[in-house]
């Protein structure tokens, strides 16, 4: 199998997956903020204000999500490099063991 090396998802796939997820959340959060503001305005009759506030909140949320995602990726990379430098064989053993248990 091309996408599954040694019984687990290949590194390229995990890498592509991680990178490709970052951008979309920014856009989606902005639009959700915009939509929430728009419909709250319609409901409460406070024409432009909630739209502006929630749009800004949406943008803030989007950037915060991107930041969080980047931090998560960095932590993962650091943990991986620490694992290969330190107890590489032990880690491999643990992975293989848990895999065999599952079957």
């Amino acid at each position, binding site marked *: 199998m091309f996408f*599954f090396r040694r*019984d*687990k998802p290949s590194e390229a796939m995990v890498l*592509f997956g991680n990178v*490709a*997820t970052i951008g*979309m959340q920014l856009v989606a959060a902005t639009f959700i903020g915009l939509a929430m503001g728009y419909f709250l305005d319609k409901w409460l009759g406070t024409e432009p204000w909630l739209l502006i506030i929630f749009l800004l*909140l949406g943008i803030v949320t989007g950037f*915060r999500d991107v930041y969080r995602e980047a931090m998560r990726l960095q932590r993962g990379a650091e943990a991986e490099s620490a694992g290969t430098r330190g107890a590489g064989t032990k880690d491999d053993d643990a992975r293989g063991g848990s*895999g065999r248990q599952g079957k």
Partner: protein
Amino acid sequence: MAAGLAHPLTYSVILDDALGLHLPPHVYYMWLAMIILFTCAFVLRGRLQLVPGGLQNVFETVVGGLEDFVVLNIGEEGRKVFPFLCPMFIFILVMNYIGLIPGCDAATANVNTNAAMALTVFVYYNYIGIKKWGFGYIKHFMGPVIFLAPLMLVLEIVSHLARPLSLTLRLFGNIRGEEIVLVLLFILAPVVGTLPMYFLFILGKTIQAFIFFMLTMIYLKGSLEHAH
């Protein structure tokens, strides 16, 4: 093939005319994916062997690899949610690959299919969180500092609502785009133009299915682990 272009003659159109049901194409191709998977499942269940061969080997590699991946990321609790995650991946993968067959359309190239799946994911991870933490699940929305809690609540709600939207649009945009590119290249240079793209799109479609699976896993991890 891309359903967005003028009068694409796909098998579902012919089938729909014959049956007279007036259903959109993506419903037929979703049923096709279901039929393929159910057939595989029943055939495999009938002749499970200790030493796997052929089809069983393929499925064991995929399912075993994904289970290891989930357990590595979520921990032992991942085994509880794995029956939700793995079929998600295989189902999306099969639906994506069906789009590569000439005369067929990927069910995921329609926004309705993806929205249904993304909303299922949204409901499921919130259900898992509420089931595990009870009312304390709201702490996941509060953030670490108590006097910032009202602001964080709004931010988290926006962030959580954005998740199904981004899941839907990412899968839809990628798969639909690939289908349209295939059709356009086929118009420009039949067979010669499309053949190299198949390799790229097999990669792209697998990665999109994997991304959907991985994000679902990350969301489930977020609702299962302790609030910061």
